């Protein structure tokens, strides 16, 4: 029994601990709010060996503090105020910044109120193994709790609380270490208040509290050179305090106050949405909002008003007379703004670049197509910034001095790798050494007087184009957690390590409790070559009654990963294993993923089995779920399984089982297709690495799907659907499911129009079945790849599938559009997807194998977890694709050094000054740009290029097949390889 006590509250404390106040709600009602607080004396200081705070076993602060700082020879602890975390998180996170830190509850809560992303980073920091941070709950300790005095702002109250806690710490240290007679007085470490607030420092000094500004602290610490780069760009008022504010040109309109924004959005006059930058044209962006079918178009810098990709913004829509179509031109930031000077761009009243930009805009405006108008508008405010750290290159032209030994501070431009982001201005002392490297840069602020956002350097990732730097930058760019698993996580693994085996069968053995012994079944797995994390295995055998028993056996991950353990929390945070071409970032420690859970052949493994009785027509007679022990008889690759199935000389049980599975799979697939499932395509290519050491790609190959791919897929779909039905039945409020919403018809408008005009084909998007049927009709007999191209383009019009909690959405929105299934979940890959682990736990509870963990009963908990998993899932896919792209680039580079690379390509977009093409053999997209004037017909998706003589012209349209020459040239400025495409046929564009 746990100890249950009553928290006694002395009467005298009531003034401090009870609060009654009145609050006005949004609707204008006045509400009385009652709050009380219990003050305690058992909140511990966290200093090792403290004699007063008894439970200091988990203390994280060394008893003498840090002795590394020159200003504090007797040792010190750092106690930062809220703004330090808000403004200098990168410094705090740097491994070079390592003093013991006291983090006050007051500070934590203030950070939480101000910014959730920063709060989450702060929480991660507290848990990090390499940091010494102690959270001191000062608001609950009787000596350090403060109440707001009359007329005091919350800010002042918090500052006072922070000072009070600092002085408490200092006296606590001296009280707990009284001088010992006969021994020399040991000097006591100091607790130093770290704050950039001048007023607060003055007050602290008056009260005799040691305090220091962040910059001063950093300048006197060990790695001051490297650390000072991490300091965020200081506010405009203290950069150059002498310059009058009026002298600066205001380049952007000011934002409206938050209250006006919220009121305007509520009233429907303003619209809220996420800002999307246009990857082809940096002077254009859009914001999809619920009030309009088409996203609101923002044309020009002023209208985009300092929004950065992903920010939540508020838009004012212009009069319909001013509505326009998006530009049909490719506008590249690097070329248009190549002469902008990082150091002085904010002063010039009307500089050259501004004029260039304006010219571009004007010429564009005159020829915007009239047909596809959409609402236009301007951003009047930002609800929430979604800034993070971005992988960038330093632009060599922005350097004043490239002398490698120069340590002078320079202002330079950092260009993000992503085309969706503006270049960032930052100050650094390491500029020359950072040239040619991939670096991480954070945006700090974007003032109305500054054309570009200001940021600061976080760290260098390595030489551009080196595999390590590219790999890490990719992981950072897609926010993939890739730190090695910590000790607490590894401690959750079975103590036997890789010696763990399924224990011999016996009644008393817990592993065998309620498990079926399926070791005798002829089970095998079929996977891509080299697969180490084998999630699934299958079997099929005829039954005496003429039906067939088929089984899908999934690795029993939930036997090893228990809810709410460090390993479970880490897996939930990672959400998914990420596959890059040359690296796999595991969701679970590899002991589980590639060994104990992996259903390897010839060893006994724990599994979670779904076993059906199917008619020979593949109709389900019944299904059951059981935990089991299996022993796979073989692990095939798709090819091996295919060969075995097709070999007429083989007639063993295993082969028969594969054939049986295959015939069922064909019927299952036919059934699905009849129900309206879509057969979509994505541009998938495979990279062959010739050897592990050099990992130079020798070949890029399009993925070919075999019959056996489909075999496995069909059974996995069937298992997922059966499990989804079962857990939804048992836990109608909290089942973890997956759905794919039907795409809004407007998504297809453009594709439909192009198909109609260019090919005379009709796309029927009224239902998934109709779409599937009309896609089958989109065939060009001379061009077999055309159908695949249409499927790829269709896929891009779709919404993405998502995990959801069954109690959170309406029952009629459960369906999976692409699979044409009314219900679906993910169950079959628990080694690499966290949602599957949850489904396993719910299924285990549904069959009364084990009780469901508390958290899986909570709708809000599941929603929270799934939100993260959905995001990670998306990011993992994008990271995987980007990795393939990088290797395709490398392959192209090595090929183009030997020969001229010329490939077939389809035109997928037309611009006023170029073509967007898709090279299906390489799975890449590219741009062909024309320098010379060409004729552009936006309504018919064609361009016409006059021949050199000027007599006749060549017309190129979307879906036309062309031949392009592909080169990889090194961008002189950013030092990164850039794929450049030029047209070879029907005309040669190199001269154009």
């Amino acid at each position: 029994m746990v100890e249950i006590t009553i928290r006694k509250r002395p009467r005298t404390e009531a003034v401090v601990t009870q609060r009654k106040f009145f609050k006005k709600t949004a609707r204008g009602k006045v509400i009385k709010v009652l709050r009380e607080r219990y003050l305690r004396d058992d909140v511990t200081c966290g200093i090792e060996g403290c004699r007063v705070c008894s439970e200091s076993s988990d203390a994280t602060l060394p008893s003498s503090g840090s002795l590394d700082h020159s200003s504090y020879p007797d040792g010190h602890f750092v106690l930062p105020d809220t703004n330090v975390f808000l403004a200098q998180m990168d410094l705090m996170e740097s491994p070079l910044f390592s003093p013991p830190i006291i983090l006050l509850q007051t500070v934590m809560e203030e950070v939480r109120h101000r910014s959730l992303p920063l709060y989450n980073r702060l929480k991660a920091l507290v848990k990090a193994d390499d940091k010494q941070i102690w959270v001191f709950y000062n608001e609950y300790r009787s000596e350090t709790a403060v109440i707001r005095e009359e007329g005091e702002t919350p800010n002042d109250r918090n500052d006072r609380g922070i000072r009070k806690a600092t002085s408490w710490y200092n006296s606590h240290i001296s009280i707990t270490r009284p001088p010992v007679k006969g021994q020399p007085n040991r000097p006591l470490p100091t607790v130093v208040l770290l704050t950039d607030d001048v007023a607060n420092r003055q007050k602290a000094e008056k009260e005799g509290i040691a305090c220091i500004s962040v910059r001063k602290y950093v300048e006197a610490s060990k790695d001051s050179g490297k650390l000072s780069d991490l300091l965020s760009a200081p506010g405009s008022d203290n950069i150059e305090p002498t310059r009058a504010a009026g002298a600066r040109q205001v380049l952007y309109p000011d934002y409206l106050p938050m209250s006006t924004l919220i009121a305007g959005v509520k009233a429907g006059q303003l619209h809220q949405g996420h800002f999307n930058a246009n990857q082809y044209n940096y002077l254009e962006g859009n914001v999809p909002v619920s009030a309009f079918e088409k996203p609101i178009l923002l044309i020009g810098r002023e209208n985009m008003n300092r929004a950065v990709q992903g920010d939540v913004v508020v838009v004012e829509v212009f009069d319909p007379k001013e509505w326009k179509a998006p530009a049909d031109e490719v506008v590249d930031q690097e070329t248009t703004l190549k002469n902008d000077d990082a150091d002085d761009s904010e002063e010039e009243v009307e500089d050259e670049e501004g004029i260039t930009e304006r010219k571009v805009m004007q010429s564009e405006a005159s020829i915007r197509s009239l047909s596809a108008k959409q609402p236009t508008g301007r951003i009047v405010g930002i609800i929430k910034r979604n800034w993070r750290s971005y992988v960038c290159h330093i632009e060599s032209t922005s350097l004043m001095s490239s002398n490698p030994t120069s340590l002078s501070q320079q202002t330079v431009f950092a260009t993000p790798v992503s085309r969706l982001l503006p270049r960032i201005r930052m100050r650094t002392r390491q500029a020359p050494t950072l040239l040619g490297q991939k670096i991480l840069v954070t945006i700090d602020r974007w003032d109305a007087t500054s054309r570009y956002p200001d940021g600061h350097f976080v760290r260098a990732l390595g030489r551009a184009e080196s595999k390590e730097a590219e790999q890490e930058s990719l992981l950072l760019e897609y926010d993939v957690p890739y730190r090695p698993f910590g000790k607490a996580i590894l401690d959750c693994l079975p103590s036997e390590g890789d010696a763990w085996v399924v224990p011999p069968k016996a009644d008393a053995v817990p592993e065998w409790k309620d498990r079926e012994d399926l070791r005798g079944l002829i089970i095998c797995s079929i996977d891509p070559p080299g697969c180490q994390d084998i999630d699934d295995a299958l079997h099929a055998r005829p039954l005496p009654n003429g039906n067939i028993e088929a089984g899908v056996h999934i690795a029993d991950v939930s036997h090893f990963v228990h809810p709410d353990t460090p390993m479970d929390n880490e897996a939930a945070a990672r959400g998914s294993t990420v596959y890059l071409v040359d690296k796999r970032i595991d969701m679970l420690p590899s002991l589980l993923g590639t060994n104990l859970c992996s259903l390897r052949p010839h060893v006994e493994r724990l599994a979670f089995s779904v076993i059906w009785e199917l008619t020979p027509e593949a109709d389900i007679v019944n299904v059951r779920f059981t935990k089991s022990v299996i022993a796979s008889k073989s692990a095939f690759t798709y090819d091996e399984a295919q060969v075995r199935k097709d070999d007429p000389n083989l007639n063993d049980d295993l082969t028969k089982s594969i054939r049986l599975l295959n015939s069922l799979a064909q019927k299952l697939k036919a059934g699905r297709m009849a129900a309206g499932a879509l057969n979509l395509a994505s541009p998938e290519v495979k990279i062959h690495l010739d050897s592990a050491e050099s990992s130079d790609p020798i070949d890029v190959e399009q993925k070919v799907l075999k019959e056996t791919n489909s075999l496995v897929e069909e059974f996995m779909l069937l298992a997922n659907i059966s499990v989804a039905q079962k857990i939804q039945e048992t836990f109608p409020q909290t089942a973890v499911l997956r759905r794919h919403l039907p795409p809004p018809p407007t998504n297809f408008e453009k594709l439909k129009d192009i198909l109609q005009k260019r090919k005379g084909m009709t796309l029927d998007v009224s239902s998934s079945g109709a779409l599937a049927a009309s896609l089958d009709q989109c065939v060009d007999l001379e061009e077999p790849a055309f159908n695949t191209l249409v499927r790829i383009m269709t896929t891009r019009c779709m919404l993405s599938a998502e995990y959801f909690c069954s109690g959170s959405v309406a029952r009629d929105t459960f369906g999976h559009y692409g699979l044409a299934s009314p219900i679906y979940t993910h169950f079959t890959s628990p080694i690499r997807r966290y949602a599957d682990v949850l489904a396993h736990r719910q299924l285990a509870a549904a069959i009364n194998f084990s009780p469901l963990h508390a958290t899986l009963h909570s709708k809000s908990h599941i929603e929270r977890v799934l939100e993260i998993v959905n995001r990670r899932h998306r990011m993992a896919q994008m990271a995987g694709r980007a990795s393939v792209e990088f290797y395709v680039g490398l392959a192209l580079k090595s090929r183009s050094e030997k020969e001229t690379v010329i490939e077939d390509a389809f035109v997928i977009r037309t611009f006023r000054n170029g073509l967007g093409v898709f090279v299906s053999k390489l799975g890449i997209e590219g741009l062909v740009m024309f320098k010379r004037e060409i004729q552009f017909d936006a309504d018919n998706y064609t361009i016409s290029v006059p021949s050199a003589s000027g007599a006749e012209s060549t017309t190129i349209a979307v879906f036309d097949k062309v031949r392009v020459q592909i080169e990889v040239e090194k961008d002189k400025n950013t030092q990164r390889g850039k794929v450049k495409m030029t047209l070879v046929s029907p005309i040669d564009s190199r001269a154009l």
Partner: protein
Amino acid sequence: MSSRIEILNDGGYRSDGRRQYELRDITIDMTPQGSADGCASIAHGLTQVSVSVFGPREAKQRSQTLHDRAVLNVEVNVLPFSTGERRRRGRADRRILELAASIKATFEPVVQTTLYPRAQIDIFVSVQQQDGGLLPACINGTTLALAAAGVPLLDFVCAVSAGVHGAAALLDLSALEEGDLPHAAVAVLPRTKKVTLAALETRLHVDRFAEVFRLACDAGQTIHAEMRRAVRTRTQELVAAMGAGPRAGPGEHVDRDVAMDDDAADY
């Protein structure tokens, strides 16, 4: 925006500084008020309730009497300023009727009504301030007021609320916590360990309920000790006021309380 407040932070503290299994301060005042036969004011944290008991006495309305036992009549009055939103609740307000019905149902099996056929026991509950755990406070207050009035009870009734936050169970929820968590109110008879009330306010899975339920039962024992102490103090005051040991008259219920004490001490 309640989501901005952390229900249970990483340090294991709740938003008011308590830990998971810590109950709020309980203050009990059993000073007689007016003409009531028994009175008790109880505060669970900032929730304040006072209960007056009249009877057993002759029923006012003949038609409502029962020939073999006494009738319990529970009336609840919620003061308009007791809650966040100032609101006058009539006696016929559904929530108030429900509260009264829960209290009545809780005490019907506990009060030895058969000793007083055709009589009536009136319980008037006045809610002065609400900050979560209203029903438990009403029940605990009623137990004390009945004891003070000398109404024979089979046992004390001790109630507490409990909720679930993620995997953690929390005891004695404040209004803020009640707004965020699935929770239940449980009333136990500490002597027999029987449960006379389990009121679920929100959806809670049966597995989770069992755990919360056990915890609430244990917490009932802690509350019992606190209530017993209050009764004993009151008894001693009475004894001191009368200048001597137990006598006839009020001594009757004093004795019973002490006896109940001893029985309960077994736990």
